[in-house]
């Protein structure tokens, strides 16, 4: 399993490095959205609930771009068949794709989150960073699990670009909600509040739930 995941992950990252189809697109989308908010709100700084909401909604929509592209090379270039012909555990593809999406999310957030701080955030990012990293990680894990499941579900349909977001967004709402609520006290002016454990636990449980659902369903999605 580990060898197969390694082979798939390596292939995914090589293809992304060659095509630059996902991470740059996600990053540009997030940056553009922050710029639009900067001018649309006509404010130089935001904080608290508003900051957390704008951050997470933007990250979510940017992530959808990556989700939509996740299986495209496999579906269009016969990668599924090549994988299915090999005597390997099919769950390896789920793990590899989820790790790939997680890597994309982390890579684009390395640019998007500082850009958000620069363009919109009132309080300094440094004071919120340790707690925000924990929330980002939990949010990204959930997006990776749900995104991989939805991408596998829709990639072989003709309307995958439409169906992907339509299916993913309702499932991702609890993640945006939990992550925004957890981030809000961290992004408040003055002394940042403590991390709300309730929302972190909610996020963690939701991630676990969808990780298990994806694991249980993935084999069936690959089947003829």
């Amino acid at each position, binding site marked *: 399993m580990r*060898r197969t995941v390694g082979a798939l992950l*390596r*292939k995914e990252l090589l293809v992304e490095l*060659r095509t630059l189809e996902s991470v740059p697109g996600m990053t540009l989308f997030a940056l553009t959205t922050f710029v639009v908010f900067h001018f649309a709100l006509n404010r130089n700084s935001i904080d608290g609930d508003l900051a957390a909401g704008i951050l997470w909604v933007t990250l979510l929509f940017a992530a959808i771009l990556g989700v939509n592209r996740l299986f495209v*090379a496999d579906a269009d*270039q*016969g990668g599924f068949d090549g994988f299915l*012909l*090999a*005597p390997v555990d099919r769950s390896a593809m789920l793990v590899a794709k989820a790790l790939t999406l997680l890597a994309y999310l982390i890579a684009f957030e390395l640019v998007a989150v500082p850009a958000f701080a620069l363009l919109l955030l009132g309080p300094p990012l440094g004071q919120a960073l340790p707690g925000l990293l924990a929330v980002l990680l939990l949010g990204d894990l959930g997006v990776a699990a749900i995104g991989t499941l939805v991408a596998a579900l829709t990639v072989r349909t003709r309307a995958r670009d439409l169906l992907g977001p339509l299916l993913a967004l309702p499932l991702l709402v609890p993640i945006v909600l939990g992550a925004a609520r957890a981030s809000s006290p961290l992004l408040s002016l003055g002394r940042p509040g403590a991390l709300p454990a309730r929302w972190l636990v909610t996020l963690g449980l939701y991630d676990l739930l969808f990780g298990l659902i994806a694991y249980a369903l993935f084999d069936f999605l690959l089947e003829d």
Partner: protein
Amino acid sequence: MAAVQVERLARRYGEREALSDVSLSLEPGRTLVVFGPNGAGKSTLLRVLATLLRPHEGSVRVFGRSLPREAWAVRGRVGLLGHEPLLYRELTARENLRFHARLHNVGEARVEELLEAVAMTERAAEPLRTLSRGMVQRVAVARAVLHGPELLLLDEPRANLDPAAVELVEPLIGASSGLTRVIASHDPAGGLAEADLVLGLRAGRPALLSPATEIGAAEIAGLYR
């Protein structure tokens, strides 16, 4: 034990019957050539044998293993060369073969050996999208035999290959490979020359099934009229 044993196989795509009532038996080391016009069900038969499609009716056994129940035991013993090369366009020939080698737990020495065999060593570091269709087909041949399959499923394997390339891949997928082969072909004379058994399909149904020695190219050509 037959390498391939098919009895009353049926396979549908929605309402359309792609294969119906197909039965055949192929001994190890023998070659079955499947003829038939476009849409006759040749590729579907190959994909069922490759474990990529489930049979909807009938029974299919490959090396004595029943499909799809024991598909896991058949994968890795079968090599498929279809219309699609099953290779990533953005990766180089070497990267593609190394990827498949890792999936099949095959050493990298085998990758280099096959690149040499299909005369692709010099272009092995170039992305596939920059190569000609013939070159991609040579890499696809290498991919199909990378793991040393016992059964080769070949869908018009010489398409896009020039005469020199056909000679090049002959030891890998030709009669001299000694492997059990199922070949889908549109070339009555060429297909018949390498067949031990001939299956003719028309609209998914078997129109002829005969040892190659008992049939002529004219009868096969009749399938296309």
